[in-house]
């Protein structure tokens, strides 16, 4: 009497969650330090390191684009997954609704990021 088993689609979200988690653990604190403290306070790097012109050039470079895209999108997929599971843990099993809000939000932000990065050109 074997139950029929349905394959879970979790690996997709789990893989994005894992990638985002790895990236945020490795780069998150450093990015907060550089963009939030070091540059505005003029520590180590000159204050105009993140000037509009420089950041625009960064975002127009193919590698820079990839970096910005990965940071924004994967961080959000990580957060979405974490929030979705935390809702479950505290007893909110909204199922499809929670799923749509969490993962839908990450997906929407991913698309907007991709569109914007492409729109500012190369």
């Amino acid at each position: 009497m074997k139950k029929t088993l349905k394959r879970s689609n979790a690996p997709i979200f789990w893989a994005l969650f894992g990638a985002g988690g790895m990236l945020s653990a490795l780069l998150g604190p450093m990015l907060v330090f550089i963009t939030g403290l070091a540059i505005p306070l003029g520590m180590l790097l000159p204050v105009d390191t993140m000037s509009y012109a420089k950041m625009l050039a960064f975002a127009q470079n193919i590698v820079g684009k990839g970096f910005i895209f990965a940071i924004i999108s994967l961080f959000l997929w990580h957060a979405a997954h974490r929030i979705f599971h935390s809702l479950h843990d505290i007893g909110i099993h909204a199922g499809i609704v929670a799923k749509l809000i969490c993962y839908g939000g990450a997906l929407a932000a991913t698309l907007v990021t991709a569109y914007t990065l492409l729109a500012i050109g190369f």
Partner: protein
Amino acid sequence: MSENQRIIEIEVLRYNPETDKEPSKQVFDVPFTDDMSVLQGVQYIKDYLDGSLSFRWSCRMAICGSCGMMINGEPSLSCETFLRDYYPARVRVEALAHFPIEKDLVINMEGFIEKLESIQPYIIPKEARTLAQGEYLQTPAQLASYEQFSSCINCMLCYAACPQFGLNSDFIGPAAMALLHRYNIDSRDAGKGERMELVNSEEGVFNCTAVGYCSEVCPKHVDPANAVNQNKTNSAADYFMRFLTPKGGAK
């Protein structure tokens, strides 16, 4: 002997399905000595104070896995937990969390047994061998790779510790996954494909949110959390690789 005999309060969660609507607590004063386990305390209650108290036990030496209880809220083997460590405070004893109670401290373990059966906990050989071909040989290194996962005594403490099993009792859970992993990585076994179906399913590993409490309470250091998390990677690989392999991975 009598000078070092003290009295400890043991609070027991009682439940009789024939007369009680819901479980309730009852406190007993139990004389104890330094060498007495919580199990012996509960046995004292049954022998001298209230013969109707029900609980499971057998070996009294952390081998059989039948005496698991919540002791002050922690999943523990009552035969290797000592009253002296709680005295002079009261010690609280309850049935294992997350399982239906059959009576008092006895839980219904049917669901767990079904899970154990579902993972096919036996070696599924690549090809059958005749007696004349002799035994399957294995190197010490091959043995070492799965040995840790084979020391489970089915005490279910890890299930009582797992918040995700508490939320969804369909989750295959820590001990069954550890045992599944034990067979999957055994060099004599070729049943991984069949077992992966369960790992990959909605009842499978992705119910786990990496809490890790299961491994903390395990009296045999099986580290079921490790088995579960290794199989998340295996399952994710299986999920994506099936698009690349002709046989399409496990169903």
